[in-house]
């Protein structure tokens, strides 16, 4: 789960990481009022859960409160990478001397958290990493020991941070580690961490990703998820414990298991079709979950055929068949459906679907071929 910049920064502040004064606004009037409180010169920043908003024109500096209102109005009417801007963050403008990149994330290959820093911070950090990797410093953290102070000093030294700032930097590093650790973050990123003209460190921007699997112990974070930023179908899918990603094709897919779901999409494509979605009903799905999955697939007007590929193990094919029947009763689908059931209780499942007017298939390839043909009409 992604957090907005303003949400991330308010968490940073709780852990003692300095952030600019500012608040979030949903209207130009609110933006103006905040700018007045802050004394005029402010930065207006679009709050959307995609990268590259600065390059898209979603971050602007205003010299006074009136200009803040004007720019907020502009930004609030923008759409960035398909997402309408609903909120802006109005922050006190900082006098920037230097920009540093600083983050903690999971390094899956090393199986450890890694702290990353670079003296060349800012929006072009990925280019820096690709072209001049020697400018990026990485230090792995022992997950059982946590971040040690000497590691923060090592980082500060290797990005040539002035010595008088080492102590403040170590405090920020310790804070960022706690942010990452306490909130089950997959990423806690400050880019840029700036040195101001009056020689202070301040986190101008913040980004956090939270491990969805850990949300059970962070009800406060689950609460602040911005569902406006998701496709409604994805919100609905999550509510039912389904893993769903909408795609542009016309063949709806319902599969158990992520690997098999991706494989089913691959084969549809191999035979000349285009999948309309990725949908994994997970292990052991009951009839109710299957029915919810089917409603989500059929709500997409692009869908011209549906492919069901179920290899029963922990999932029982008869349960899946019952879910399909429930949903058909309700939705009365008009598109052809191809079903392949193998494994646990497949025989019972097939019997249940005998009169459901579905196209049946034996193998995965056969099922994909039939679905592609059916979608073409």
């Amino acid at each position, binding site marked *: 789960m992604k957090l907005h910049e303003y949400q991330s920064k308010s968490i940073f502040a709780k852990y003692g990481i300095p952030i600019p004064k500012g608040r979030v606004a949903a209207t130009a009037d609110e933006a103006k009022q905040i700018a007045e409180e802050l004394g005029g010169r402010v930065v207006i920043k679009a709050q959307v859960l995609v*990268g590259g908003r600065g390059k898209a024109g979603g971050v602007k500096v205003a010299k006074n409160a009136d200009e803040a209102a004007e720019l907020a109005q502009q930004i609030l009417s923008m759409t960035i990478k398909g997402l309408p801007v609903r909120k802006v963050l109005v922050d006190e403008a900082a006098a920037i001397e230097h920009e540093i990149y600083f*983050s903690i*994330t*999971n*390094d*899956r*290959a090393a*199986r*450890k*958290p890694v702290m*990353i820093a670079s003296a060349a911070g800012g929006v072009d*950090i*990925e280019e820096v*990493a*690709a072209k001049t990797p020697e400018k*990026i410093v*990485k230090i792995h953290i*022992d*997950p*059982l020991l946590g971040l040690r102070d000497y590691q923060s000093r090592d980082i500060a030294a290797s990005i040539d941070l002035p010595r008088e700032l080492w102590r403040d930097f170590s405090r920020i590093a310790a804070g960022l580690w706690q942010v990452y*650790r306490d909130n*089950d973050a997959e*990423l806690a*990123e400050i*880019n840029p961490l700036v040195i101001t003209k009056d020689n202070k460190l301040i986190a101008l921007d913040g*980004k956090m*990703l939270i*491990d969805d*699997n*850990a949300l*059970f*112990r962070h009800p406060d974070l689950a609460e602040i998820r911005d569902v406006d930023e998701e496709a409604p179908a994805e919100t609905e899918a999550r509510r039912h414990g389904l893993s769903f*990603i909408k*795609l542009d094709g016309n063949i709806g897919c319902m*599969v*158990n*298991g*992520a*690997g*098999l779901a*991706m*494989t089913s*999409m*691959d084969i549809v*494509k191999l035979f000349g079709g285009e*999948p309309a979605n*990725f949908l994994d009903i997970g*292990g*052991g799905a009951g009839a109710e979950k299957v029915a919810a999955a089917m409603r989500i697939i059929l709500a997409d007007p692009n869908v011209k055929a549906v492919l069901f590929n179920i*290899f*029963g*193990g*922990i*999932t029982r094919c008869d349960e899946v068949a019952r879910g399909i029947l429930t949903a058909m009763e309700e939705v009365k689908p008009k598109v052809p459906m191809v079903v392949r059931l*193998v*494994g*646990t209780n497949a025989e019972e499942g097939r019997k249940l679907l005998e009169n459901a007017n579905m196209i049946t298939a034996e*193998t*995965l*390839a056969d099922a994909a071929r039939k679905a592609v043909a059916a979608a073409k009409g």
Partner: protein
Amino acid sequence: MSILINKETRLLVQGITGNEGLFHTTQMVAYGTNVVAGVTPGKGGEWVLDGKIPVFDSVKLAVEATGANCSVIFVPARFAPDAMFEAADAGIPLIVCITEGVPVQDMMRVRNYIDQKGVRLIGPNCPGLLTPGEAKVGIIPGNIAIPGNVGVVSRSGTLTYEVLYALKLVGMGASTCVGIGGDPINGTNFIDVLEMFEHDPQTEKVVLIGEIGGTDEDKAAEYIAAHMTKPVVSFIAGQTAPPGKRMGHAGAIIEGSAGSAADKIRALESAGVKVAKHPEEIPSLLK
């Protein structure tokens, strides 16, 4: 011969009285697996499966009483890390964690801890192990595979079933099937299992089933090129998957552009691995 599990395995089930634990214990016993004990804290002294299997309050007590040497975990995600620590501390040398949804930071702590203990962990979020005709530890349906000389290792669950089933349909069997699980951080990776298959006399060929994300398949390709004498056939899922969620800038800094199916296929092919276009093509590539 097989790898990791066989008829001699003395299996312990953590979470044996839960719905899934009990259901799959029944299945494992029916397959012929030697299930010697179960653990559910607070239910020590009870028996399950008509009085055949004793339940203990802790893994330590179960090991002392029954000599269990392998544990399979069916407890919910929030309790799974503790279950893995407990099994490792009780001296179980092989732990198989079926549970899905374990938080990543928990897994980093678990993995670093069990590495210090010298314990082998399979999973989490995996279907477990199957040595056809001898034993199954986990949830792989027993009837979809027959004994044979193909070693199967996979990051996926149901996709593995597809492959075992496709092999069975043409009369090909498996020596052992290892589901290592699809989580970003797990206990055992491809290289560990490839090495075991390379040294297992029963295994003559290997099937490696990978998917997008991470760099495990690329490392496997390097290992195969340098160390494997047995032929390897592969399939990589996610060739048409859209680029996944990006981990801010840090993801790009850590992993670069690695992780796509095309990259993995290229790496495997250059190591001499035949890569199937779809899973049902695998048996013909093994011939």
